[in-house]
């Protein structure tokens, strides 16, 4: 298995500011995925991040709004730029070891005032 550590666990920020969410894996993983979950709703895949290349974004998510870095095989950072109340949600990083199981971080609950 792989353990994914996210920080912060929660954050509260003002509209218009930017914040970073970090994800650290306890072993090397090829791909890291970032998800957004609004309360009581489904998870939406935001982007896939591989080491040394630009993240691939899903429809509705852009690199200008949600830049993602993946500098090595154990680390990724998601930034939320120009945060708005509509960005208030839980953000998860996830990854796998190439098998059938997808592992998730503990999540970062973001509240934008």
């Amino acid at each position, binding site marked *: 298995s792989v353990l994914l550590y996210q920080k912060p666990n929660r954050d509260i920020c003002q509209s218009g500011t930017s914040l970073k969410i970090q994800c650290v894996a306890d072993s090397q993983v090829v*791909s890291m*995925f970032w998800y957004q979950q609004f309360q009581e*709703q*489904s*998870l*939406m*895949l935001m982007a*896939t991040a591989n080491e040394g290349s630009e993240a*691939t974004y899903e429809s509705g998510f852009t690199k200008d709004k949600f830049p993602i870095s993946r500098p090595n095989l154990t680390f990724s950072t998601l930034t939320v730029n120009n945060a708005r109340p509509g960005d208030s949600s*839980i953000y*998860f990083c*996830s990854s*796998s070891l190439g098998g*059938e*199981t*997808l*592992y*998730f*971080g*503990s*999540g970062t*609950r973001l509240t934008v005032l």
Partner: protein
Amino acid sequence: GQQVQQSPASLVLQEGENAELQCNFSSTATRLQWFYQRPGGSLVSLLSNPSGTKHTGRLTSTTVTKERRGSLHISSSQITDSGTYLCAMERSSSFSKLVFGQGTSLSVVP
């Protein structure tokens, strides 16, 4: 677009009863994944099933890909089973194309 529909949206069981959760998807899937989430918590992978039936403990997953449906059976429910069960459809052989349903909220009461 790709859609995954889960039913029921919520379910209340008495401890010891069985549960049957349904998942229907709108396009071809390579595999169905089932996850468990506590309120405000992270997700835990339960079962990954491309087709047929798979068991682990009290859980049984059945996937019928050509009929675009799957189910998760929980036998002898326990209070600690309470939480949200999410079905996710893989559109390719990697996790890069995972589409989640809205989940079934399960409450198991004494």
